[in-house]
């Protein structure tokens, strides 16, 4: 049995955005803080820290989840992807470009989390309609856009515009 004592740091080895990564974490260290403070991956934003706002959403083994409701220790041996994985050498990926085109962001605080949720939806449900897109977006709070531009961007990428 893997047993990590409180108050002591333990090595966590995992795959971050396709590359082997490792860091040191106490059991109580949140995945969101681990990514930002231990690994310097600042793309993942931290909002409410109790699972309500969706800003910290990352993908763990492909599933979009709240990184403030996971501990660093829980990604041992798993694959984590963050917003840093999306852009290609050619620039923004299609979801990012569509958000830019449709003014799907203003301050950008919620955007990394939204991109990770929409990325999973795009892969698993490429035929998602507007109702499904809105259902998935309900897990994210955006206080700038009123969501309209985000929905329009998603509809374009999903071929429903």
């Amino acid at each position: 049995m893997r047993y990590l004592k409180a108050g002591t740091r333990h090595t966590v080895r995992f795959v971050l955005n396709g590359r082997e990564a490792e860091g040191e974490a106490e059991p109580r260290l949140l995945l969101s803080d681990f990514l930002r403070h231990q690994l310097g991956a600042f793309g993942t934003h931290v909002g409410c820290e109790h699972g309500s706002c969706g800003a910290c959403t990352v993908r763990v083994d492909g599933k979009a989840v709240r990184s403030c409701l996971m501990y660093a220790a829980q990604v041992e041996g798993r694959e984590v992807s963050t917003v840093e994985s999306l852009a290609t050498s050619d620039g923004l990926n299609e979801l990012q470009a569509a958000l830019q085109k449709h003014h799907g962001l203003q301050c950008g605080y919620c955007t990394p989390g939204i991109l990770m949720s929409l990325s999973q939806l795009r892969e698993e449900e490429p035929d998602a309609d507007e109702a499904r897109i809105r259902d998935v977006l309900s897990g994210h709070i955006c206080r700038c856009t009123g969501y309209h531009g985000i929905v329009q961007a998603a509809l374009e990428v999903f071929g429903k515009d």
Partner: protein
Amino acid sequence: MKPAAFDYACPDNLDEALALLAEKGEAARICAGGQSLGAMMNMRLANPAALIDIAGLAELKTIAVVDGAIEVGAAVTQAELLSWPELVDRQPLLAQALPWVGHYQTRQRGTVCGSLAHSDPSSELPLALALLRGEVILQSRKSRRVVGAADFQTGMMATALAADEMIVGARFPITKAGEASAFLEVAQRHGDFAIVAVAAIGDQQGARLGVGGVADTPGVIELGWPVNDTALNDFAWSLGGADDQHATARYRRELVRRLGRRALEEVHDALS
């Protein structure tokens, strides 16, 4: 908004988890998806000395029909049950209720049994279990017992779980021929905690109506056809809801009357 220090244990099998729980007792908490417990720990509303993570235990990751009920293991996520191909045929009420549980993102880690263990008065899965007269399977190192929904939920976020026990599975009775069901909810935003949630299931003889979000535990009544407004009104008053920051007791009673009637009408329409 950071949790207090705790030991983190990742047992390799159920026996190890139960042995550790027996050793640590009340100081330990079982964690499956952590979508409620993790939030409470971040807010320091829960401060366990040890967390026993059961999410990876293959023996708890099963969904099967056993003795007339869908038996859902304690490591099965809400998203996994929702995408179980037999769900709509076996128990449509669960397929109707699960999309209301949290959000897309939290359903991918949050477990069915974890939601039952958390026992929030406004949450959907305890309501579904109560309406269907389902059961939970509780296990400790020494014993295993099956407890009905009404006896399991003892109050607001309180259950019959002993300190050395954990839920290993939940049993949701499968639907019978000639039954129909409905699930409706009002919340401030989709995915927020329900102000009132109603679930109904019935056949030609009559229906059961369940309500969450008003009393400390789900309330369930049996009704005949046609839908009787006096009975609905009496039920709404009997739940004894209180005013809080989300809604007044009066508004909740009105929702019970209106959503209750609508859910029962949906069941009735589906039957005819």
